[in-house]
């Protein structure tokens, strides 16, 4: 702790650079100062290695093996097949490759729509709740409920709501409002995609709301006043003040939401029970089925690694582009 209290001193003495006093003060501090940051970082680095990096490396290694039930107990017996798993899973002429590609497109469309709607809802709610009014706190708490509920509980409830014969959704749509003559299926067939999307948006938008609400707290009120004096209406203020001020929040929020949604396993798994209908066959479920259900961990890992590379490229490109733009603006 000595370092942290003396560090500002060093800054204050900066103008007297080169003075003997400074040199004397610095010498003993040097080594400790260089060690401490590493010590402080160590736990995080160790955990990061254990939780992320090592499993990733193991995953890459697994993707190069023919790791089936015959070898799962002792990996050293699993034949090394090199890129064979990648060739088999990414071969777009085979059934497995076609399904993976289909699943990829479904996931991409699903993620973009889900993030888009979640952001729109979150933004709208954050803007509406920006000005104080009676009952604002209650609404804020209410809006955060989906995010606070455990995912399993929430999604199981949705799966009950969406059942064809006994679900509340069909009860309201068909029995009470009479909007449809036939009871539609929500958990199988084409509708399953939209069901999944609705549940996903419902789960994610409070997070967007939370982040944007926090971001809006940092927008100085004077800017709105100045804009109002200049005659800017609501939309103009939104476009010229709110959105630019929220840019840093949005950059991170959109990326994080996209990655979460793209990788989301719990929602489809709980909603569809392990094997999703083709129309809603998200990639995480697809990989789970390919490795756990068919006991082919090599192919499953190969798909995971391929997907990791894709997300890596997307994330890096996103960050590069957004960073460059920031530099341009600066």
């Amino acid at each position, binding site marked *: 702790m000595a370092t942290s209290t003396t560090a500002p001193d060093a800054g204050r003495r900066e103008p007297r650079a080169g003075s003997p006093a400074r040199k004397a003060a610095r010498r003993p501090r040097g080594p400790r100062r260089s060690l401490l940051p590493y010590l402080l970082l160590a736990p995080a680095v160790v955990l990061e290695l254990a*939780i992320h990096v090592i499993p990733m490396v193991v995953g890459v290694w697994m993707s190069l093996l023919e790791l089936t039930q015959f070898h*799962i107990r002792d990996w050293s017996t699993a034949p090394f097949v090199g890129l064979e798993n990648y060739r088999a899973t990414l071969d777009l002429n085979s059934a497995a490759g076609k399904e993976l590609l289909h699943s990829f497109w479904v996931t991409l469309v699903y993620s973009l729509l889900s993030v888009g709607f979640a952001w729109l809802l979150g933004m709208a709610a954050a803007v509406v709740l920006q000005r104080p009014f009676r009952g604002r706190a209650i609404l804020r708490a209410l809006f955060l409920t989906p995010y606070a509920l455990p995912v399993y509980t929430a999604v199981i409830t949705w799966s009950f709501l969406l059942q064809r014969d006994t679900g509340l959704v069909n009860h309201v749509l068909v029995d009470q409002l009479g909007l449809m003559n036939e009871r539609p*299926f929500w958990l199988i067939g084409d509708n399953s995609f939209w069901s999944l999307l609705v549940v996903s948006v419902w789960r994610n938008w409070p997070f967007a709301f939370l982040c944007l609400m926090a971001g809006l707290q940092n927008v100085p009120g004077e800017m709105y006043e100045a804009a109002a004096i200049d005659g800017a209406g609501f939309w103009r203020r939104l476009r010229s003040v709110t959105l630019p001020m929220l840019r840093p929040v949005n950059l991170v929020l959109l990326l994080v939401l996209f990655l979460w949604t793209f990788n989301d396993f719990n929602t489809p798994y709980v909603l569809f029970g392990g094997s999703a209908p083709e129309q809603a066959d998200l990639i995480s479920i697809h990989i789970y089925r390919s490795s756990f259900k068919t006991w082919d961990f090599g192919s499953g890992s190969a798909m995971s690694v391929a997907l990791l590379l894709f*997300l890596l490229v997307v994330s890096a490109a996103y960050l590069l582009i957004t960073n460059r733009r920031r530099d341009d603006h600066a």
Partner: protein
Amino acid sequence: MSRRHLGIFTAAVLAAASLTACGGGSGDDSAGSSKTLTYWASNQGASLEADKTILQPELDKFEKQTGIKVNVEVVPWSDLLNRLLAAAASGKGPDVVNIGNTWSASLQATGALVEFDDATLQAVGGKDRIVPAALAAAGAPGKPPAAVPLYSMAYSLYYNKKSFADAGITAPPTTWEQLAEYGKKLSTGGKWGLAIEGANPSENAHHAFTFSQQYGGEWFDSAGKPTFDTPQNVSAIKRYVDFMAADKITNPSNAEYAQNQSVSDFANGKAAMLLWQSAGSNLKTQNMPADAYGVAPVPFLASPPAGGKKINSMVAGINMAVFKHTKNRDGALSFVKFMTSDEEQTILNRTYGSLPAVKTAASDPAFSAPEQKTIQETLVTTAAPLPQVPEESTFETLVGTAMKELFADAASGKPVTEASVKAKLTDAQQKMR
């Protein structure tokens, strides 16, 4: 790479990493010492809690006899295979487990289970006591069994006596053609002829096996290679899905059933027929008295094609296996011996409505109720084990899921044709390796 680019790269790696790093968490139960054993029981009763209540007094009895304490965890079916796989892969986990007997060869292939050679079988009571059909479903042919049969079951046709009487039907159907015909009579007024667990891959796969046998098909050839899309198998699957698609005696909603809703539908009269294994104890908990339903053998084809076999059920059942990684092998084997003893076999099978896997307990009057008699008769005469090949569990998943998709097609009004069935089965077969 500049420092900023490195930062971006790292951020991207970390953000994307959550994908490959999502591993299946497994319980960290430690394998037993000399005085304790960990036992994963399968869910046989109405709930996990009910199973615990049923098993605990027996485990206490075992502790009194041997001084070994057994910690039981009842694992739901949806998790059991994954949990077993994790235990096999990690060498950590329970000492003794229940496994679905159809998984025997698949789990045997991992090499994680204790082999029951003649000497080991002798240690748990002897090979001769065990019902041969049940033992045949405990591992690959020609190898020492990987498990010991615990509960025996078979599929039967359960029918609602009142619905049958109301429709003027006097006897249960003995052929599928009759079943379809009766089903049409019974599918009126919001009620349906036959309930099907259409979104449950395992249930689907069990029926796939039976129907395929009746059409003269096989899912694996003698070399163990998959033969999913043969004409016989296509006809078999189409026949089963057609109960919903063509005969329309099954509520389309059943295409999304995977949590035993079909049993509930039968219990509360929404469906008049059900094909199930040992449904009696489940029906009882749903307040359907035993005299409200009849139990008959699963029907056959009226005119079976050449090569068609007279098989109307798989040899269903639960086996008990011991993990090689146990630190208390003798204790684990003595627990297996205890659970397969005449007394425990009678108590447990009577409670669960299944049949003893040992001949010596079968004579108990508890097993002469109509349901148990039908199961007994089926097991002795017209049941066959599912293919005991390492890829069996994959077969269940792939073919069962293909059938789930076909039911979804049927439910949403898409036609189910020979071509569409064959396409699904060909796809499933291509995923085997």
